């Protein structure tokens, strides 16, 4: 009697979407500019080799897979170190470094380097990307619409990674899940789109007549409303 073992790693569709959205967010925040681009490309190359290595190990190419994964990790570390030490614009380094680290962690969490994936690493990785969004806002490097879109994109990347792990745990990677995943991702994207549109609309309506203090009060009121809804 031969039986199959369940491959409970994160599902491919949601994982791929999560990584693609995360990379898009990073590039949209200026990750494609000459200061960052070489290091981003180097890191993405390293991550690709890492994923190939992990896949090789899963398919039985243990030695070559481990070597490739090791090379991938080293390349990623070189990319991060090179960016941190090589660039001479401190503000840009502070702004992009969490995002670069976040991308690496996100891929490592859902590739996954070990086990069935790590929700904590997905959170930390997308948290790094969100810090990138926050720093971009702090340094006034992007307009409100871009900040909102990249913020929503970061949440979608987190949602995609988390969902990939959840579905992988419950159903396994061999199960046919594309309809399930696509529905969830589209629903999340729709909510993200509605959220961005609503905030932009509210901003346009309020325009400049709404002071920061008024906005804070509105925000606190919304938080309280949310708390009441939760009960």
């Amino acid at each position: 009697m031969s039986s199959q073992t369940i491959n409970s790693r994160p599902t491919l569709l949601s994982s791929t979407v999560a990584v693609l959205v995360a990379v898009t967010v990073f590039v949209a925040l200026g990750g494609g500019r000459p200061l960052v681009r070489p290091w981003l490309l180097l890191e993405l190359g390293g991550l690709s080799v890492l994923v190939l290595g992990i896949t090789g190990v899963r398919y039985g190419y243990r030695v070559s897979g481990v070597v490739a994964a090791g090379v991938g990790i080293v390349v990623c570390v070189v990319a991060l170190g090179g960016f941190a030490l090589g660039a001479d614009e401190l503000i840009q380094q502070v702004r992009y470094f969490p995002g670069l680290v976040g991308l690496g962690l996100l891929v490592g969490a859902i590739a996954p380097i070990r086990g069935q994936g790590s929700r904590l690493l997905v959170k930390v990785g997308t948290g790094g990307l969100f810090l990138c969004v926050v720093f971009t806002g702090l340094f006034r490097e992007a307009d409100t619409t871009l900040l909102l879109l990249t913020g929503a994109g970061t949440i979608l990347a987190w949602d995609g990674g988390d969902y990939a792990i959840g579905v992988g745990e419950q159903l396994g990677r061999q199960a046919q899940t594309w309809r399930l995943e696509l529905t969830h991702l589209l629903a999340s994207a729709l909510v993200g789109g509605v959220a961005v549109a609503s905030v932009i609309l509210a901003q346009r309506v309020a325009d400049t007549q709404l002071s920061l203090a008024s906005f804070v009060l509105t925000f606190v009121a919304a938080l309280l409303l949310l708390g009441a809804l939760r009960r």
Partner: protein
Amino acid sequence: MVLTLVAVGAGLLAKRPALLLVSALGLVFAAYPWLMAVPSPQLSVDRRLSEANPQPGEPVDVTTTVRNSGTRPVFDLRFVDGVPPALSVVEGTPRLGTALRAGTSDSITYTVEAERGRHAFESATAVVRDPSGGTETETQVSTDTEVTCTTAVSDAPIGSRTVGSSGQIPADQGGSGTEFYQTRAYRRGDPVGRIDWNRYARSGDLSTIEFREEQAATVVLLVDARAESYRGRDEQPHAVADCVAAAQQLLETLLDNRNQVGITAFGRAEAWLPPGSGRKHRLRGQQLLTSHPAFGMHPPDPESVPSLASQRTRLRARLPSNAQLLVFSPLLDDDIVEAIRQFEAEGHQVSVVSPDVTVIDGNTGRTLAAMERDQRLRRLRQTGVTAIDWAPQQSLSAEIDRGHHLPDQ
């Protein structure tokens, strides 16, 4: 929510309204699950088998279709089919993740490898979540499907003790059967057709031919499903699964031969089907062997199982005095042998079908266990018990026909 607060904090400290607006996104995503209704799915399942009566080891394709019979869409359905525990999936997966509009369906196809026995599919598990994943509902969906992998056994290894009704066991008394038994002096009322006319022509004496009567027996199938019996070779079903499969085959054979058959078990739960016959009784017996908790696929907690002595006492009180016992046990401990010998000593004819799950290899412990089992079989045969040493990979029918059950001389 943490990220939202980070954005709010940064926005407030640096007086960046844009960051405060970004934090509003977090609020929308946090509110999203609470705006969703709790799903109340209405699902139905249809299951098709490529072969409902396969041979052992034959692959069987299973196609399961799950349908949304409700009026609302199901956005997030995670479905796991209820594959019988004894069957292993060798290709594909019995799991499906899908989204279904009202009235639509989705299917999965996978392959299981048939094992001896009657295997009922369990209820499929469906977990339905709202689109945000905030709330989920778990439900069981069932449809009756069974894989029957039993080869007909022509004979059952039971003794010659019979009851008054007609069956297929040759009785030690003459009557109206088909096999010649003896002749005796004619008595008034004997049927004319049974008078030995040849002898009358020769000698002038009237004599009557008697044939061997074929009568029915009362047999109780006893499955040893104690924790001790849940052992098996690597990659093979455990002995209890083999015992249940053998009991299912012999239940059919004994009932086909018009015997009265009952079923019981030594194990975690009290299983008892009093001896009987007929179509309904056959169905009850099959159902009991397929789904009673006593025959569960996972070993019981030894602490929760009543002692063998108390189970034996309870069975003794129930067992009809003329009943034979047909015991299915891997004989992996001495207690079961002692219990069998006591039944035999109390006047019940006992036969044993013992699936051999022991292995003789370089491992001292395993080799010793195999030798001890051989010793137990010998001891049983020496006390007159019919004991069949059955390799589960082989046909039970062939094993019985080979006459391995004859007591050791």
